């Protein structure tokens, strides 16, 4: 091991950054802190020992044993922590590489279907069009899943890029309502929007906020099994913009509610209903909203429906 490698290892900040962790979650920094705790404990033990115990050899022995025990304990803890961090890092790296590699064949598939559906290579019969539509929908699902996996791995690495600009959330909502309307009509679901007057714009990343609202919309529509309603509210509350989406769907069982924002979590009810979903949407939504210093939450009652909400701070400087 050369000098450069040793110095790199001693550069705790750089090492923690390479894990994508804050200092207090980083094994190397924790080991350093525990080292200081051991030294402090040894000094205190020595001070107290010399005060209350006459025999210096006994004091030395006590200090030695205490130091050894603390060292073993801290070494074990930080090593386990290090292994956990490394496993997480490798898992994120794997997801990132695989997701990226999947994008090429999925794009090929999607665009090949586009050209077949266009009719430019020959007349498309009705039955063929139906099957092409199924192929297109499923390739879009795969694209969405790969996108979500890559977003999650970037969130965990801390490398999710954001581009802030002044945007109107109301415009994004109206755009998504048009997109979901055909599906909602087909499922007998009515969508209502209640937006306040003269709502301020927020300084966020439009594309990412659209992903958040789309995820919440998707859940709301998907979990209404028969005739139902989705009510969207958008208003200013003090120094924040408040968004709410309320559905009359299946609701979330109480036992599942505390896990709802976790990665890959899907409520038993959702799985039983066989609704499609990766279990990543709400994790991504929460991460994005919190990135913009907002808050996100929900209320839900089984068989009655759910209300998901988020707030985004209004930056007065930009209004």
């Amino acid at each position, binding site marked *: 091991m050369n000098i450069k490698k040793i110095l790199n290892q001693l550069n705790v900040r750089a090492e923690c950054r390479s894990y994508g962790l804050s200092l207090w979650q980083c094994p190397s920094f924790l080991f350093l802190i525990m080292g200081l705790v051991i030294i402090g404990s040894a000094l205190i033990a020595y001070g107290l020992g010399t005060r209350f115990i006459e025999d210096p050899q006994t004091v030395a022995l006590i200090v030695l044993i205490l130091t050894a025990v603390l060292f073993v304990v801290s070494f074990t803890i930080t090593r386990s922590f290090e292994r956990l961090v490394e496993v997480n890092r490798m898992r994120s790296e794997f997801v990132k590489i695989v997701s*990226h590699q999947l*994008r090429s064949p*999925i*794009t*090929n598939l*999607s665009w*090949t279907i586009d050209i077949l559906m266009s009719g*430019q290579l020959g007349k498309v019969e009705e039955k063929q069009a139906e099957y092409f539509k199924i192929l297109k929908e499923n390739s879009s699902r795969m694209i969405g899943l790969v*996108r979500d996996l890559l977003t999650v791995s970037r969130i965990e690495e801390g490398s999710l*890029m954001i581009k802030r600009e002044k945007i109107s959330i109301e415009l994004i909502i109206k755009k998504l309502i048009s997109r979901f309307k055909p599906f909602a009509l087909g499922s007998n679901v009515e969508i209502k929007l209640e937006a306040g007057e003269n709502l301020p714009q927020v300084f966020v990343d439009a594309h990412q906020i659209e992903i958040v609202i789309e995820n919440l919309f998707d859940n709301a529509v998907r979990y209404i099994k028969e005739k139902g309603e989705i009510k969207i509210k958008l208003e200013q509350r003090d120094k924040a913009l408040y968004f709410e989406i309320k559905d009359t769907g299946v609701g979330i069982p109480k036992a599942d509610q505390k896990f709802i924002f976790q990665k890959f979590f899907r409520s038993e009810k959702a799985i039983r209903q066989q609704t499609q979903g990766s279990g990543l949407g709400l994790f991504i939504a929460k991460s994005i909203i919190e990135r913009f210093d907002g808050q996100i939450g929900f209320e839900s009652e089984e068989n009655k429906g759910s209300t998901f909400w988020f707030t985004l701070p209004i930056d007065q400087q930009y209004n």
Partner: protein
Amino acid sequence: MAKTILFIEDESALQKTFGDILSKESYDMISALDGEIGLNLAKSKKPDLILLDLVLPKVHGFEVLKELKSDPGTKDIPIIVLTNLEAMEDVNKAIELGAKTYLVKTQYNLEEVVEKVKKALK
């Protein structure tokens, strides 16, 4: 005379798809399956537009872009980057190196990409 598009892309399926659709739009398409061939063809054929993937064998897309934009014979050819890399640093780098537009493949359907190509050629 039909406009010429050089498509530098290592996925032969995409080469075929674009070849079919662009010929229907009355464009002539030249294929290059790696960065090195792409550079040579750009310099010899002087196309009206270049569609450039970034992750390429032999010479990376960024190197191709850099060289084309520094060569007096090719610096004025508009280049549309068409890739699956969507990190902001890649987008910024491509624009700084002189790309006209940066398109992430999974964010567009085929028709939308063709519209962007037509717009760039006007």
